[in-house]
């Protein structure tokens, strides 16, 4: 690497205004990372409070109202303020231009605008917290949400605004991937994380507008009584559900596709082996993005929709599972005849394989209409989506942070602590959520502040392990940030894991403000471990 290593995007340019008005995608990514983690902790704290309350059957520390507000805010913050915006926003922003050899995204000013729009929308959500909360659930089902006296409008307004941020980021990423790759970097030579971000962005720009209009209609219903969802005025509450889930099902793919991309990067690099089934993984990303638009009715199997709808939605739901299965097997087979290192990113990736498989398989139970009738709105569903969103997306996100931390910030964290925390997350997560499958099967409904005595044993196990989970996540994240404070700098030319994509081979750690000092010339694909030996280097 070059000697001009003192100047990197963190220390140049200097001054607070250069950060607030930055057009550098890496700085914007860092800002998304910090806000994202803040909201993650906020949502996590709410979860711990909920679990504490649920350790015993009655209203121990929270009244019904407080609990109902807690679970709604937990969901809304986690989904709309953390997972959807911050994971593409943080890792996507920092890495996408680097991976395609560009000096920035296609529209840097739009990128900055995205961040500020996100922050502005988040303010509304935060306002609802201090103004007495909202208790409708993150799904805002009508007619309760049109009649509830809680802060439905500020929260939906916040979500509406954040939606614009989502759309602009999606547009930016799509344009970047299509138009700003260096010569020779054809689609099939792209890192799979780029494919994942591309698929995510396609879903973002096509689904989010429908969420926007749904939130607008909900707000108008509250303000003007337009009667579109209110049966007393000739409207239909189930229509709301159709509108809402038409966005929110693709939204779960916005949440998981970047995670799939991260795993597709970690496993080949830490196994030093070409990824198995590159084209399958790439195509399955696109097919999941597309098919994901056709299954929303499986959230509504007890709403009274027609038998024909039930059949169609169940049928298509099963199709979305098959490409995902192909990915899991491809990731596992990648390790065959490799040289696997049990580093923190790899531990998170292996955790992901275990936890996401459970999450995905339990989706199969829910796709069978007859069985879903029993399981709908019970803790079985809660366990299922936490396995895919937390055991899947968040575990992958933590893995990605650990993988790209030295590259993004030029520092290395304590790997022993990181490994222990990763183990703690794995064990704590299973302990918290596995009992919840049983709770659901035995009939325990969700969104309950109090519950019948018969469920107390499983709830108490779940609460105990949630404490372990919370502590482990906290340690994992703090350990990462501690590497800044301790200034565990690595050599700017280092490549600690031996990665082969452009961000590892052609930029310094941390990268130069304009990413590449000379235009990179593509020498090999991102996973050509069968053709090239890349040394693992890092010196303090």
């Amino acid at each position: 690497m070059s000697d001009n290593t003192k100047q990197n995007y963190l220390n140049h340019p200097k001054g607070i205004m250069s950060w607030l008005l930055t057009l550098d995608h890496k700085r914007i990514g860092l800002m998304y990372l910090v806000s994202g983690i803040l909201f993650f902790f906020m949502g996590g704290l709410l979860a711990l409070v909920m679990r504490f309350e649920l350790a015993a059957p009655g209203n121990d520390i929270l009244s019904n109202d407080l609990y109902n507000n807690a679970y709604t805010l937990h969901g809304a913050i986690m989904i709309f303020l953390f997972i959807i915006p911050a994971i593409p926003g943080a890792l996507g922003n920092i890495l996408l231009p680097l991976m395609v050899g560009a000096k920035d995204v296609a529209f840097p000013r739009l990128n900055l605008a995205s961040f500020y729009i996100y922050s502005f929308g988040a303010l509304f959500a935060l306002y609802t917290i201090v103004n007495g909360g909202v208790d409708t659930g993150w799904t805002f089902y009508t007619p309760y949400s049109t009649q509830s006296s809680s802060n439905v409008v500020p929260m939906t307004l916040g979500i509406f605004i954040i939606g614009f941020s989502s759309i602009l980021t999606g547009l930016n990423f799509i344009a970047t991937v299509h138009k700003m790759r260096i010569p020779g970097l054809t689609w099939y030579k792209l890192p799979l994380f780029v494919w994942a971000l591309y698929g995510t962005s396609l879903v973002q720009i096509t689904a989010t507008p429908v969420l926007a209009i749904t939130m607008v209609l909900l707000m108008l219903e509250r303000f003007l009584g337009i009667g579109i969802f209110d049966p007393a005025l000739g409207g239909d509450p189930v229509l709301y559900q159709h509108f809402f889930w038409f966005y929110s099902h693709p939204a779960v793919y916005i949440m998981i596709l970047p995670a799939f991309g991260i795993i597709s990067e970690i496993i080949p690099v830490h196994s030093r082996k070409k990824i198995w089934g590159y084209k399958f993984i790439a195509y399955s990303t696109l097919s999941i993005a597309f098919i994901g638009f056709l299954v929303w009715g499986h959230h509504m199997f007890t709403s009274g929709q027609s038998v024909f709808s039930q059949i169609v939605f169940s049928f298509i739901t099963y199709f979305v599972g098959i490409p995902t299965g192909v990915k899991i097997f491809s990731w596992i087979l990648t390790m065959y005849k490799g040289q696997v290192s049990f580093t923190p990113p790899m531990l998170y990736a292996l955790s992901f394989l275990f936890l996401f498989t459970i999450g995905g398989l339990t989706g199969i139970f829910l796709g069978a209409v007859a069985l879903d009738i029993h399981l709908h709105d019970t803790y079985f569903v809660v366990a299922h989506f936490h396995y895919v969103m937390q055991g899947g997306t968040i575990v992958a996100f933590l893995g990605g942070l650990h993988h790209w931390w030295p590259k993004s910030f030029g520092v290395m964290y304590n790997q022993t602590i990181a490994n222990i925390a990763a183990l703690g997350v794995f064990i704590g997560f299973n302990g918290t959520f596995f009992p919840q499958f049983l709770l659901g099967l035995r009939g325990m409904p969700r969104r309950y502040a109090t519950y019948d005595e018969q469920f107390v044993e499983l709830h108490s196990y779940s609460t105990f392990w949630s404490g372990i989970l919370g502590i482990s996540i906290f340690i994992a994240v703090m350990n990462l940030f501690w590497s800044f404070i301790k200034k565990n700098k690595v050599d700017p030319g280092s490549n600690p894991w031996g990665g082969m994509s452009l961000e590892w081979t052609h930029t310094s750690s941390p990268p130069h403000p304009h990413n590449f000092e000379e235009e990179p010339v593509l020498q090999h694909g991102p996973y050509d471990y069968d053709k090239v030996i890349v040394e693992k280097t890092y010196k303090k």
Partner: protein
Amino acid sequence: MLDRLTEFFFPKQVSTFASDIDNLYFFIFYSSVTLFFIVVFGMVYLSIKYRHRKGEELKLTSSKDHSNLLESLFFIIPLILVSITFVWGIRSYLKMVIVPDDAIEIKVTGQSWFWTFDYPDGGTTLNELVVPSNRPVKLVLSSKDVLHSFFIPVMRSKMDCLPNRYNVMWFDATKEGVYDIFCTEYCGTGHSQMGAKVIVMKPAQYDDWASELGSEDDDLPLDELGAKLYTKKACNTCHTLDGSALVGPSYLQTSQMWGQERVFDDGTSSIIDDNYIRSSILEPMTQIVAGYQGVMPTYQGLLSDRELDALIAFLKTLNEDSQI
């Protein structure tokens, strides 16, 4: 063994289709467990066998990234499993949706936060659904206010209750007993207390019960009847007897303040007496006690005059009891 597992995972199988649904569950369960073990075994075995041993040199690794056979298996085996699951799921579902002709029809109305059941030969119960065993029962569900959902775990049956619309579900109970009913669509503060019970009786017993509906309490003294109605009419969902405030004021407090002024949220007040209690049950929104929300539904049409008198009598006794 399957029986023991069924007992472990599920509540009792009471409806005629429960065992079919449980079997579907076990088919998916065993398939999933098998696939899961393949995944976990694969990843543990491969990661350990091909681990980078300490001091080992970095080398060029295998180019193998494709296998037509394996990829076809990854596709075809899951496809077969989900196809079976899908077909089984739909066939079982169709059984749950096609209501037998000889079903008796009971109307279920959900409202925040209790359930009302109206029976074919007249009569109404609150929070207690009484049905005969071995006879198909069709429930016609709706809501008086927001979305609710009617769930009977032992019947494996659930359906949303919508305002201004009717949804239908049915079951045929095979075992007598008392089982849980839960509301499974969030409906506000009292959502988790909106439980009820389904009582399955032998058909002969049910017929007797149905004909007696409404007349069984004729000989009870008023205050005892009131105590019974306290739970039967779901007052206990929002009012305690021990002085602690829930959604509404505790009956104990009301009783202790008998004859004194009670202040309402609009600044007006009234003496607590028989008339006040009667109007607070029939027109609860006209006088909302200060410090509480105005969420109590009216019991107009749900209580006879005698039942109203009984509740008033019961309330009065609470103060006397607490002074003993």
